[in-house]
């Protein structure tokens, strides 16, 4: 046993930590096409090692078979703590814990991200683990059977047993008719039951290849040393084929789509107004982040102030700009108080939007947005885990790592006129899905 830890305590003086706010990074490619990004920050003795794969809920299994949804998320479960040629079954989490590490993974409709954080003296160990699961994970029926049950429980816990838990499912399936954003990220359970081992293995060989991944190492590292180690551990991962996606394009919505849905976990209904807006790399997507802050960020925001605080017609109101690569989902929702009808809430919300279409937002509100943007930016680079995630995200999905520092400049360049124009162009009643989300009586 060599895994014990001695702890020695001493006192010293520490100078103030001052770090420029710019996030510095270095990037390079391995010969197999794997892109690597390094970020050095020695203020805390920790290191995050991660990789992001350009594969998400929109990429169906069985060669884009519509009866194979939920593959990317299922894969996250398989690979998050898997056996490999050199890591026996059931050992992943334990050997990581023995080095003081922790980790997780998450999946969106666009990408899957895996990351682990350790005390920084375990950098090499972290690289070994991650390269193990990319090189030769053991994907077998046994692992699939266990995770199949676990994923079903996750769906029940996170969606089916939760008030308003079907919100995103209903919105997506009505907002998207042909694009795979219409599918549930977690998938249909029947599809997962029917999926075969061969389909899962093929999915791995297709998507978990160097040209479809980015590796990120952030924290208390030495750049040149880390470069050497990354080369050693990741170079053997074989190249894959180029992935070609040709998702059908959605036709613009020109007539309001009315939907009614029922949820057994609620007593109070909700109204959801959902719009399809440009994907997150587009300038309009940045504008809609600002629109959301303007509408529902804080007690002085327009929708909250008017509908919740002054008129007391709603318990809750929110405007969400859910970022996705091909199309964003823009949703405004409200939960009424007392006997207020949903149509009345819709009317109140529309009044605020119409005002934004007809007038420029006030100078003062525009300045407020600048402060909110700055605060959000500062919060977004507060930990090495956040920075690692952001670096991978900007490289893989935006094609530009520099955005980690430059995104704030894009926000700052947006004018009041552009905000007005975007609201005018995209937030009209005939361009949306109106969902009446109602309580369902128990049988």
């Amino acid at each position, binding site marked *: 046993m060599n895994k014990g830890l001695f702890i020695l305590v001493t006192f010293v003086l520490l100078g103030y930590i001052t770090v420029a706010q710019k996030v510095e990074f270095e990037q390079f490619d391995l010969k197999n096409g794997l892109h690597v990004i390094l970020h050095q920050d020695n203020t805390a003795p920790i290191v995050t090692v991660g990789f992001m794969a350009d594969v998400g809920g929109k990429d169906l299994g069985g060669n884009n078979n519509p009866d194979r949804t939920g593959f990317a998320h299922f894969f996250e479960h398989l690979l998050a703590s898997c056996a490999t040629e050199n890591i026996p079954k059931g050992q992943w989490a334990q050997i990581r814990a023995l080095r003081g590490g922790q980790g997780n993974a998450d999946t969106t409709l666009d990408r899957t991200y895996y990351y682990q954080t350790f005390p920084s003296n375990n950098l090499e160990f972290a690289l070994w683990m991650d390269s193990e699961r990319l090189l030769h994970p053991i994907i077998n029926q046994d692992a699939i059977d266990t995770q199949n049950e676990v994923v079903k429980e996750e769906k029940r816990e996170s969606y089916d047993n939760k008030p308003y838990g079907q919100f995103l499912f209903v919105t997506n399936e009505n907002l998207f008719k042909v694009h795979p954003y219409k599918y549930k990220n977690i998938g249909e359970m029947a599809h997962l039951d029917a999926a075969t081992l061969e389909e899962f293995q093929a999915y791995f060989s297709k998507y978990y290849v160097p040209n479809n991944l980015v590796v990120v190492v952030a924290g*208390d590292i030495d750049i040149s040393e880390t470069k050497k180690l990354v080369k050693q551990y990741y170079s053997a991962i074989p190249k894959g084929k180029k992935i070609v996606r040709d998702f059908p394009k959605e036709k613009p919505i020109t007539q309001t789509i009315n939907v009614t849905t029922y949820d*057994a976990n609620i007593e109070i209904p909700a109204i959801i107004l959902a719009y399809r807006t440009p994907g997150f790399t587009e300038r309009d997507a940045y504008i809609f982040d600002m629109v959301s802050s303007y509408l529902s960020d804080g007690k002085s925001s327009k929708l909250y102030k008017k509908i919740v605080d002054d008129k007391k017609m709603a318990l809750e109101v929110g405007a969400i700009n859910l970022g996705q690569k091909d199309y964003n989902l823009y949703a405004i929702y409200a939960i009424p108080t007392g006997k207020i009808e949903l149509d009345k809430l819709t009317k109140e919300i529309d009044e605020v939007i119409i005002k934004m279409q007809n007038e420029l937002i006030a100078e003062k509100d525009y300045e407020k947005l600048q402060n909110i943007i700055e*605060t959000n930016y500062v919060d977004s680079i507060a930990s090495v885990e956040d920075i690692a995630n952001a670096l991978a995200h900007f490289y893989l999905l935006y094609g530009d790592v520099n955005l980690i520092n430059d995104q704030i400049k894009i926000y700052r360049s947006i004018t009041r006129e552009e905000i007005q124009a975007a609201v005018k162009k995209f937030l009209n009643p005939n361009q949306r899905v109106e969902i009446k989300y109602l309580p369902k009586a128990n049988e």
Partner: protein
Amino acid sequence: MKTKILTLLSILFIFTGIHAQLDRSKQPKPGPAPKIQLQTPAEFTLSNGLKVLVFENHKLPRVIYDLTIDNVPAVEGEKKGVSDLLSALLGNGTKSISKDDFNEEIDFMGSNISFSSSGGFAYGLSKYSERIMQLMADAVINPLFDETEFKKEKDQQIEQLKLNEKDVEVVAARVALALAYGTHHPSGEFVTQKSLNNFTLDDVNKLYLQNFNPENAYLVIIGDVDFNAVEEQVQNYFGSWKKSPSIVSNTMPSESPNVQRTEIDFVDMPNAVQSNISLMNTTKLKMGDTEYPAILIANHVLGGGINGYLFKNLREKHGYTYGSYSGVNPNKYVSRFKANAEVRNVVTDSAVVQIINEINHIRNEDVDQTDLATAKAEYIGNFVLSLEDSQNVAQLALNVKLNNLPPDYYETYLERINKVTAEDVKKAANAHFKVDNARIVIVGKGSEVLENLVKTGIPIKHFDPYANPIK
């Protein structure tokens, strides 16, 4: 400024160089142990008794103000909800700034401010740090309480109850606390429509005067501030905060006793597609207790994470759940041990049996050396990783003060964790995880789960979603 450095050394102190030939079958060895720097705060006390701890850190241009007032929690009884209304009404204007102006300015700065009935929290960009502190202090010292806001907030809380009426998780949490501590106890009582209609704005004001006393208060300041400047600002803005004329010292009632024999306390919710299971008992556990490290590790072995007995059994072996964990938090008065899982209806009874099995496992068998080493290393690793966030570092300093711990408590902390033996773990589990005197609170769909629960042989009592017994 003083700092403590904790050095973490692994027994094997060899740094393996980079080999030309990579042997993937061997785990790379750790490098030399990193040094962990624990910043100690600069401190001062105002003449009104307010104690201030400043953690200067200029890494990011932001600042956090965290106010904690160390009051003994009060029983609210038939008027339960006064404290909830106090939290909601604070931070909505002051005697000299209207609610709208106050909220507008907080939002304008991109900052945030919120209050509890015994404290407050504000954060924002350092360029606005002085103004944020000024507004926070004004909200604390000269709060604006008016009838219109009182009525609005109260109505909202009543609606909120309805909003959560069918939320299995909310019902489970409420019933569990009510049964474990008793509804006569501050940790067990909960708001109802009736209790919210039992009090006036005057009650809120009384509670404010009683709770917001600078003598018991700690203001923790973290971030991009200059100590000298901030000291002057605190003096300027919090200096006029007056001590309460008469200090009411609450006495804590005794919690409900644990049950003589383990029972299931069942709440029927026909909409549930999963059962929410919590096995629990109350216990006494303080941060300063000698056996505290042993209990932390015992809990970690049982259900501290994905290497815990519960997770490995209920998720990885049986696939009953997305996750199963246990927890026990230290408390000056009384603590609660809890082991929980949310499972599909059909395996509810099997999950109960497996949770009990795992608690018996840790109580009756010595933890094996690898599991013990894993739990310690994981706990220590989590602790080290958490220190990246200066809020967590500040919390350690505050813990020492609030719990009257020795000043070197955290210097020896990891060492004490590391010394825990298998015997200590077993002893701690037997003392605190009282599986034979536990309530197993289950909220689920009766028509699908009760029949099998009866077969477990554990006596079942029935309750409504507000913890009232049903015959």
